[in-house]
Every structure is written in C-alpha cells, then in structure tokens.
C-alpha cells in the first residue's frame, strides 16, 4: 500500500508516493536521487545521513517517511545558494582542511548548520555537543571544530 505525501524539500514543494516502511534517507537517495546524504550505518549511530527537518538535525536513516508530511526538509544539496555559491560553512570546511575522505562531511555540515541557525556564536562545548553524533575517522575532528568556529566568529 502506497501513500502520497507532500513536503518542502530544499524549499521546493514536492509530492511523492511512498511506501510507509521507507525511511527519509531511502526516499531522498532512491526517489529524489539526492545522494549527497550518506548512509554510514543505517541505524542512527554515525550521523552521515543527517538532514535538517524544521530546524532540527535528524538522522534520516531512521526517520520514517510518513512523518515528513507537511514539514520542511533541508539536505546538503539545499545548503548552497541557488547560484551555486557555497554556504559559509561549506567554504569553511574546504578552507580549514576539515574534509579528508568526505563521507561524513555532508552530515557534519548539516549538524553544524542546525546549530548555527539556532545560535550564532556557540561555545566550543556547544559545537562538540552538536556534532557528537557525527562520526569521522579521518580528521580527528580538530579542523572540523575549527571550521565551525570560524563561521560562528565571522557572523
């Protein structure tokens, strides 16, 4: 049995037929072809699949698709400006050396964005709290913290 749901995806209104067992991650990747959101574990422990729903960072791999009805979903593809200019956070991740293999990067940026959207000048502890659920094996997190800090200072 399929259901039709509508929601705001990266500021575009979308209507889609879904199977209720689908997760938001599955729908983003397989239906909309938005592969920027990654599956690192599939059970909500690594944060690679983080997207923002109504201002909150969530693990899309365990988020039931029917719950998305009427809500506002932002993925990594919706972070840059329409003209392709990267978001300050994306620029900071590039320039501060916060990216190595990059698999965790989209989720990391989404968690950081949710934080900075809610609080312009977070403390280092608040930054760490915000990305605690985002695992990274390459960078040792040092440059990621630096990148997020650099954006919050610049505001």
């Amino acid at each position, binding site marked *: 049995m399929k259901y039709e749901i509508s929601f705001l995806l990266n500021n575009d209104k979308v209507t889609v037929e879904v199977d209720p067992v689908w997760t938001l991650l599955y729908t983003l990747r397989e239906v909309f072809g938005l592969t920027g959101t990654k599956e690192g574990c599939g059970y909500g422990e690594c944060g690679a699949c983080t997207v923002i729903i109504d201002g909150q960072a969530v693990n899309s791999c365990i988020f039931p698709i029917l719950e998305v009805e009427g809500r506002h979903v932002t993925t990594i593809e919706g972070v840059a400006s329409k003209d392709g200019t990267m978001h300050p956070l994306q620029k900071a991740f590039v320039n501060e050396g916060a990216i190595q293999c*990059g698999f965790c990067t989209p989720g990391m940026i989404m968690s950081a964005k949710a934080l900075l959207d809610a609080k312009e000048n977070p403390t280092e502890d608040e930054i*760490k709290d915000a990305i605690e659920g985002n695992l990274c094996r390459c960078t040792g997190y040092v440059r990621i913290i630096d990148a997020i800090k650099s954006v919050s200072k610049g505001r």
Partner: protein
Amino acid sequence: MDNFTIVGQKIPKIDAPVKATGDALYIQDIKVSGMLHGKILYSKYPHARILKLDTSKAETLPGVRAVVTAADMPPNFRIGVMKDNPPLKSGKTKSIRDEIAAVAAISTEVAEEALSLIEVEYEELPGIFDPIEAMQEGATLIHEEVKSNILKMPWKLVCGDVETAKKDSAHIVEDTFSTQWVTHCCMGTSGCIAQLDASNNLTLYSNTQIPSLAQNDFVEALNAFGYKNRRVRIIQSVIGGGFGSKLDTYAYEYIAILLAIKTRKPVKIIFSREEEFFATSPRQCTITKISQGCDKEGRLTFREIEMILDNGAYTSWGATTPSVMMLPISSLYKVPNIKYVAKCVYTNNTYCQAMRGYGNPQATFAIESSLDQLAEKAGIDPLEFRIRNSNEPGEITPQRFKITSCGMKECIDEVAKRLAWKTKKEHKGNRGVGIASLIHVGGGARVYKSDGCGTIIKMDDFGKVDVFTGASDIGQGSDTVIAQIVAEVLGIPIENVNVVNNDTDICPWDVGVHASRTTFVAGNAALGAAKKIREQILEAAGKLLEEEPSFLDIKNSIIYSTKDKEKSTPLGKALRKIHYTLGGKMLMAEYFYDPANENFDREFKGNLSVSYAYGAHGVEVEVDKETGQVKILNYIAAHDVGKPINPLLLEGQIYGGGLQGIGYALGEKMIYKNGRLMNGNFLDYKMPTVKDVPPVQAVIVETDEKDGPFGAKGIGEPGLVPTAPAIANAIYDAVGVRIKDLPITPEKILKALKEKQGRT
C-alpha cells in the same frame, strides 16, 4: 621554502568543494543501467561442516536473478597471499565470515529475503580461537591440507649477537605485551559493481586502494572462469576512507564478478555496517615477548622479541606485517644486536589485513613500553634515555637501513619543550607524562618487485593540464599534493591542474596507496613528468621568443626571459602557436618513478625505503584512581616528514592519525568470543567521537630529504604509531601501574591499582 609559491603552502584540498556540496560520488552513489543487487550469506558458525545447502526456494523468489554457491566457482580457485581462501566455501566453514552462498536480485530487499530462504544444515565443530592453543601439538588443523596451524611464513631477523650482548648488559628488562583487534571504521563501507561486456571484458567500479594490483587479480579470476586474455578495467569511485582496509581483493568482489557472469547484468554489492565490522579484515592482535638491555651509560645493547600473531582462518596481508615490524624492532633507536622471531597462527577467528601502520603500532607499543621500564631500571629519565639512544642522519642500522634525513632528536626536544617535561615530571597528584618515538618508511617501501608510480601530463591550448596519475586519493590529499607539485614546476595556478586518478584504462601503473608512499613516490613521478613537459615548453618557446631555453622561466602562466624583460609570452598563446602550425604538436610527457630502495634479502635485510620518517609523541594525563578514567590533558605530536608540501593536509594526517591512536590506546577493541564478534556496531565499538578529542598540537619538524619531491617524506601512517605507548607510559608516570594489554580500559587500571595496593 621561500622561493616557492604553491609548494609549502596551506592549500585547501582540490577535491574538497565537491565533497562539501554532496556532489562527490562514492561507490554507494553509483548506478549502472540494468544493475542488480548482490547479497552474501555467511556461515552461521565459526567452525562447522555444511551438511546440506539448498538454494531452490531462494531461486524461485520473484526478483531473484541468480543464486550461487561454491559449486559455481572454478574448482580450486583461491585468493589471498597464501592462496588459502576460496571466495565461496564448501565442505567446512572456518570462520564466522565464511561466504557460503550469494544472491543477485532486482533490489537489496529481495536479495536479503532470498538469503533467508537458503536452507543450510550445519554440524557445528569445536573451534580454536586462541593462537597458543592452535600451536599445540595435536591441535585440530584449520586447514587440513597444510598439516600445521603455524603459517609457512617464518619471520626471523638476526643482527649481531644478542646472547653476548645480554651478558655484557648492565640492565635488562623482560616483559610481555599484547594488542587487540581493531577495525578501520571507514565511514563509507566496502563495495563494488561488476560489469561484463559482450566479450567478457570486466569493468569493476571499486573503492580499492590498489587499482593496478586488483586489475591483475581479476584478470587471473577471469582466466579461472575460462575467459582467457580478457581486459579488466578498474574505475574507482570517490573513496570513503581506506586506512589499509582496501589493500587486498576480497571474496565479495569475486562473488560480484561471478553473479555478473551468471546474470549477464552489472551486479552491485555494498556492505552493510554490520558486514563492514565482521566481514572486513582488522589490524591483527599480537602477543609480544620482549627483552631489552642497556649498558651503564644507558646505551641500548640488544633487543629480543618473540611474537605470536593470530592469523585467523585465511591469509591476507596481515600475515606479512612482521616485515614492517622489523623496522622499529631493528632500527627504532640505535640498537646493535637484534633478534626477532614471529609466528602467524591459523585459528577460527577473523583474518587480518593491513591497517595504518602495518604492524608498527603493535611493535612500537611493546618496544616503547619496555624502553620506559629499562630507563627506570637504569635510573635515567625516560626522555633523556631516548635522546641518548636517538637515531641520527648518516646512520646505517643493523637491518641495513640507510638513514638519510633524521629529525628524531628535534622531535623529542619539541615534546620536552611543549610538554614542559622537566616541570611536569616532578608531578603532583595523579598526573603524569609519557613519551614514545617512531620510525617508519618515508620514501616508499619495496615490498613488491616494483615500488613505482607512473604519471602522464597532457597540456591543452590554454595552459591548463590534465595529470593522469596511478596514485589513489583515499582522502589523504594526494591529488592536491600532486597538483601543487605540477603547478609549481610549470608556473601555473593550481586551478589549472586537473588530476585524474581513478581509471586503469587511462592512468599509469602504481603499486597502491600503502606504506605512506604516495607523496614521496607519486610526488616524484609527477615532478619528473612536470619537469619533462616544462623542458618541452621552454624549448619550443625559445624558438618563438628567440631566446636560449635555459634563460626562460614560467611564472603566473607567463613565459619570460630572465635576461631580457622584453621577451615574454603568455603560456597559452605559446602553446597555441606550437599546436596550430604545420607539423605542430600538443605537449605531453610521461614519467615512471621507482625509488632506489631495496627488497629485503633472504635474511630480511636491505634498505627497504629511500628515506625514513621520524616522530615523537608526548602526552600528559590525569588518572582518576576511583574510576580508572584517563583524561588526556595535553598531547604533542611532533613529526619529521622532510619539507612539508602542504602543512594544512600534513597536520590533518597527524590529527587524524593521533585520534585513531588514542582510540587504539584507550577504547577500541573488537570483542570476539568463540569466533563471534560481540560488538560489531558503532554503539558498542568505541571509535572516538568529537568528545574524545584532547588538546592536541601537531608539530612539524622540518628536515630536508634529498630524494623527496621538494624535500618531502611520507606521513600517512606515522601519526598513530607511538600514541599507545606514550599514553601507557604517562599512565605509569601518573599512578605507577603499567598496563601491558591494549586497550587501556578503566577496568584494567583499577585492577592494576588494586594489585599494587595489595603488594605494598
């Protein structure tokens, strides 16, 4: 490095923007038309006889396109270093990760359902999960045909005379240290897509670290399948982490190929996180008995090590890590007399592979922990003890390593200074400081007959270049380093350099991303090709400008005479003139660089690497005696890596390696119980999170490596090599207990504290 404008600069990774926007395509993101999805059925028991294997129900499930078992594989086809691993197993299963059947279906969900319909009857057999037990006479043989559980790969290194040195030593210590299984935790799991064309040529989309060697393995596989003399093309996706995990070819890749042969469709296999934990090959666990001695002045006299490695049920490169362990064992500090024997032992556990450091972290944990014990016995400050025994430039070590540049003492000095060693050593409360050093290959490593890498450079009409390199970028930033080198030599902005690194059809041969060799070897290959094309440009421009080529230079994409300022031309304009003329040409150059290092001889001696990387880590900890918790108050990681080509990336390697080392030291462990992994997920396996990051300083100690590209040496692995012993030594300094078994958990510290109290 004042004269350079691009080399030596903190330049952001050239592949970072596509990764920041989500546009980078990893193996998970790649789709091929008509693609099917493969899934693998693993053994239910670590050791069992398969009595019945019935796939008929699975075959009739709608959406299933093929079900394969060992019967579908070419008979006697085996993979791995010792060719002891059939990609699909029949008869007896030997580990919990034994692949016994696989399915290709229209979706992952259907494939998974089909797996559940495969009926298997097992007779569970008693397993051997302890290498010591497996070595006993009369122990059940894991591989009946090889007659012994001890691998026929005897590792033995003897330099000088250990027995005499023992007699002459003023102080001797002896102890046993052990290390655990840890896994790479690549954030992107393993996977591939196998696709055959009408002529049975294979294209494999892959996240391998060894495209050229993998190509060879799969050509052999096609031969075994009866497709003789076929072509294999490896196309690498963006790679979501490597750390050594993708240095071999694996059963799942051969299974994908088999399923593609059976279905005549492309077949994609992507590991779930659960599979990534239990079905990939971790860093091997070791039991190390070590003895070291020194004279009255505290100069090392000998080092003797006996080691047992749990090989698991099959053999991958993990079994060869003793070769690299020999490097610190023979040559970390000046030690004239060495004896090292290692045995790899088959068990019914998981089998092991390369993981960042390739044995060096295990060996260095034992050496550097033992060294602290020896320093204490000799009554010498451990930092002073290390300086006294430090390696030096120009040294030839007992294993015949020729030490060229060496900044070991400088690294130790940095640690002493930044940690305020002398002050902290007179510690108060439960705080303590520890230090450990490292040596690693820094100029390639001749483990195969070739340690080479090829590069082709092609110039366009506008002064932009495409660089085709054999080197794989697994996130470490080799593409950026290569682009910097080429841009520097050609006097063009880095934006004008496009690095192509992911297709064996167009990229030259490379032995693989291992041994911290890519900056050094691929860097030198890129440097050689860039110099060649620069010569071509200047020669042709010399004719255009009527100037001697030796007086010409290129900067900011302008070719100009250093003698006559009037004579200059934009690079693009010159290139177009060279091209669009009768008998014109497009400029291309190729270069293959193979370092002048040596394979080991039969006694495991020889100059394995052209240069060696050094480092020292110092740490201050605070230990809570009530809970056993260790808090890192300050962490200094000083590394001699020659001249840095890109300090931003270099420090990234040190930070990243350092935290992996901290995980290894304090938390990470794959808990295997009777051959089964008990903590194969991120909740139970303690990979460090951002909350585990201590205050850390990455310190670059510059030396000038004459053979390195722009003076550089390798840095990929060293960042985690001395971490665990530095922490163990600091804990001992803080509370007087020495934990000899990694990881150093609060439980072990509390137990040791209790025992110590009981004694006093």
